[in-house]
């Protein structure tokens, strides 16, 4: 039993548990949406002085901040107590494609050193990549009205057309980035 928990979990185990996360939040009278927390943190930091968009009672979102705090703790527990150090078993083709872009040791860590390692981050290009990537996620998710949890999981589960359109957008952007822009950034 413990052996299976320590190994990476297959999709048919993980997917239903993500659904369970959403179901628990709905049963608790809330909804599953992680990106709302970005707006809440902006509001707590005083963004309401600059735009009405941020003028709302953030205390009503305290429950979601508790979820965020939990996810940080969950990430810590998962790597320190529930992992056997397995590499990310990505496909042979993925390893081949990434090697061609100059990525080494593909899958050895959760994240590539070429993007998240301090050597990369402390270069102008590396810093720009993380800042631009984060900015696009934060801007895009609010513009689209949700992220992967709010649109792709909750919205599609609830047969929402706006969510389907947003998810199509996620893929338009993701495919252009992966097929056309990443090869320009790394080669």
């Amino acid at each position, binding site marked *: 039993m413990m052996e299976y928990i320590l190994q*990476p979990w297959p999709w048919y185990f993980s997917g239903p548990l993500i659904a369970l996360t959403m179901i628990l939040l709905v049963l608790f009278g809330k909804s599953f949406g992680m990106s709302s927390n970005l707006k809440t943190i902006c509001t707590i930091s005083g963004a309401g002085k600059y735009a009405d968009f941020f003028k709302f009672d953030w205390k009503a979102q305290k429950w979601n901040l508790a979820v965020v705090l939990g996810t*940080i703790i969950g990430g810590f527990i*998962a790597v320190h107590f529930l992992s056997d150090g397995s590499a990310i078993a990505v496909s042979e083709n*993925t390893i081949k494609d990434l090697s061609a872009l100059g990525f080494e040791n593909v899958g050895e860590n959760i994240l590539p050193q070429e993007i998240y390692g301090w050597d990369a981050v402390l270069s102008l290009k590396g810093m720009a990549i993380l800042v631009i990537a*984060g900015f696009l*996620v934060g801007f895009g998710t609010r513009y689209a009205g949700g992220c992967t949890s709010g649109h792709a999981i909750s919205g599609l589960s609830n047969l929402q057309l706006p969510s389907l359109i947003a998810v199509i957008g*996620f893929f338009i952007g993701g495919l252009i980035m992966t097929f056309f822009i990443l090869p320009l950034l790394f080669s």
Partner: protein
Amino acid sequence: MKALKFLLVGIFFGIVLVKSEAVSWYRIYEMFKFQSFHMYGIIGSAVAIGVIFFLIVKKLSLKNISGQVISAADKEKNYKANILGGTIFGFGWALAGACPGPMYILLGTGVFSILIVIAAALLGTFVYGLLKNKLPH
């Protein structure tokens, strides 16, 4: 201790996303390259169960723990914003390899450079709030 159950849900979600490898940049790249079923299986099975859950909820008018009938709010119909914002989000998702949930989880796994992505995501949200009325919706 109302917050405790939400903290526990968060811990559960964080563990699931790490163990599923959905927090890995490599898995996101692989997904957008259509080179593995892994991420499609995760999202697809989550949505399939979610659809069944909401069908049952509606059929039986199930109540939440506060005793209210569960009614999931409809998403706002701003199709232009959905597609434009979604595309912008997709650019960032494929570049960072992380969406708003995994960003926090990765911090917990000890990747501190993710703090730059989180700070930039907050800035992006802030700038959206400033420009909201000028953008097509």
